[in-house]
């Protein structure tokens, strides 16, 4: 299902540019994220996907960008991370932070608004972690990579954000758990969260309505995720080799 002209943008990126050190990483990204839809941003390693998510979230080192970011029509350019988060923007990190001593319970409660203990337990169950086993474990290096990703997702589920970027939600996740994560995303969507996947995976891409293909810090194609998926899988070359936009193959948005 591709958006119609009546669809409302929750997030608009306007000619976003960013340098890190002496490298130009984002090269003028313009993008509309529609409220209520599931989007995917795909691209090869180093295309700039995580950098884009970090810039939207406002992480340190990613604040000095060119262009603008509008959330529900208002610029968030000057806002701190927590101000952006309180507006409803969040990010599930590609490699989630590990803490020392902090309990899963206290971590997932951090973003939840006055959630009951039962609610916290339910969120863990939903992402496939048994509360009796995980609630009081530390969010530290003793959690496996996949477990840590699931804890991250539980935290986002409890936060009920308006817009969530999930950076490679399937990395380190077993096949069965991926299906569960897709169910969690449906839940999120049902509660009004607009989801943006960042991914290389065809399975994840297929969950999205609309996809953006990122290459060398540029959006080189966008459209129905099925078409982008096919192109990404079969034809995607190192960027610069072929420019699909130039071939006139884009979908109307």
């Amino acid at each position, binding site marked *: 299902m591709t958006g119609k002209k009546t669809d409302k943008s929750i997030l608009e990126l306007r000619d976003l540019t960013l340098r890190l050190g002496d490298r130009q990483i984002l090269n003028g990204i313009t993008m509309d994220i529609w409220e209520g839809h599931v989007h995917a941003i795909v691209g090869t390693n180093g295309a700039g996907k995580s950098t884009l998510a970090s810039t939207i*979230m406002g*992480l*340190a080192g990613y604040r000095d960008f060119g262009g603008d970011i509008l959330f529900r029509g208002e610029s968030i350019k000057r806002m*701190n*991370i*927590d101000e*952006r*988060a*309180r507006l409803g923007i*969040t*990010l599930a*990190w590609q490699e*989630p*932070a590990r*803490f*020392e*001593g*902090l*309990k899963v319970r*206290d971590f997932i409660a*951090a*973003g939840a608004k006055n959630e009951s203990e039962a609610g916290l337990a339910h969120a863990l169950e939903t992402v496939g972690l048994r509360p009796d086993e995980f609630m009081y474990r*530390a*969010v530290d290096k003793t959690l496996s990579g996949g477990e840590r990703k699931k804890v991250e997702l539980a*935290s*986002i589920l409890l*936060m009920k954000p308006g817009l969530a970027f999930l950076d490679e939600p399937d990395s380190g996740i077993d096949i069965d758990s991926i299906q569960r994560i897709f169910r969690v995303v449906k839940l999120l969507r049902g509660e009004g969260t607009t989801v943006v996947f960042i991914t290389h995976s065809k399975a994840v891409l297929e969950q999205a309505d609309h996809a953006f293909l990122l290459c060398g810090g540029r959006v080189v194609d966008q459209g129905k995720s099925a078409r982008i998926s096919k192109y990404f899988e079969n034809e995607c070359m190192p960027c610069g080799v072929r420019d699909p936009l130039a071939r006139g193959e884009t979908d109307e948005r």
Partner: protein
Amino acid sequence: MSDDTVKQELYSSIGQDPHTFDNPEIAHVTINENKVLASNTVPGLTVDVRELPDGIDLRMELEENRVIQYPVHMCFGVIPRTGVQRINLDVVIGKNSKISLMAHCSFPFAVDVKHIMDAKIKVMDGAEYSYFERHVHSETGGVNVLPKAVVDVGRGARFRTEFQLLKGRVGIMDIDYETHVAEEGLVEMTALVSGSGDDHIVLHETAFLEGASSRAVLTSKVAVRNNARSEVFNKIVALAPYARGHVDCKEIIKDNGVAVATPIVDVRDAHAHVTHEAAIGSVDKKQLETLMSRGMDEDEASEVIIQGLLS
């Protein structure tokens, strides 16, 4: 204030249900300043208390081959705003016995309170002694805590201690624990302290690994905010073959806090192996940004991280 009121005040300050002590199988001693307010002992455990003008002499002895099922509670309180409390502790844990002791030290209204502990502890061969010290202080910083202990850990014996400030400001604290560990003995000492205001925290945890295959792990986690200072001097001296030790010191600083870590590793046997790790810095950026991306402001987020570290 009647003794009963003081006792209630003391138990409520440490969040202890007084009915716990109705159970005759739970040994306990409750002391306010230099007065014993309540006590109970269990078979095999002798506790003698002598009141001093400014504190108490407390001798505790556990017979050989005894396992005390429930943790023994000691409540040391100074409920008034000012006062000195000197605790002279003499502890002997008999061979192959096992006991766990929970010491609650509470100075909830302190403006100028000094708590001095001098302990001699013998953990005989094959015995196990776990000592948890939990402090509750006032918010004024008017507490001066000076615990000193010399601990002999016998062959194959285990000594575990954990110090934690649960509530209030540290004030001035200087912990000095020296342990001597015999063959195959084990020492684990952990201190978790968080300072603010103009608190001053000094930790000296020392283990002399004197017997072959003896082991020690010294862990300190300290946070200093505002103008607080911390100095950690943890030391392991390995004198015997196959002695193993690790000193781990983590300090988080915020605002104008000052943290100094001086781990000392002194190895005098080629078959011994001792490592150390010290990390001082501000709250980890990625951890902070993660919590902020869930909507917490920077101060809330760093508190959550520090509380986690110190838990």
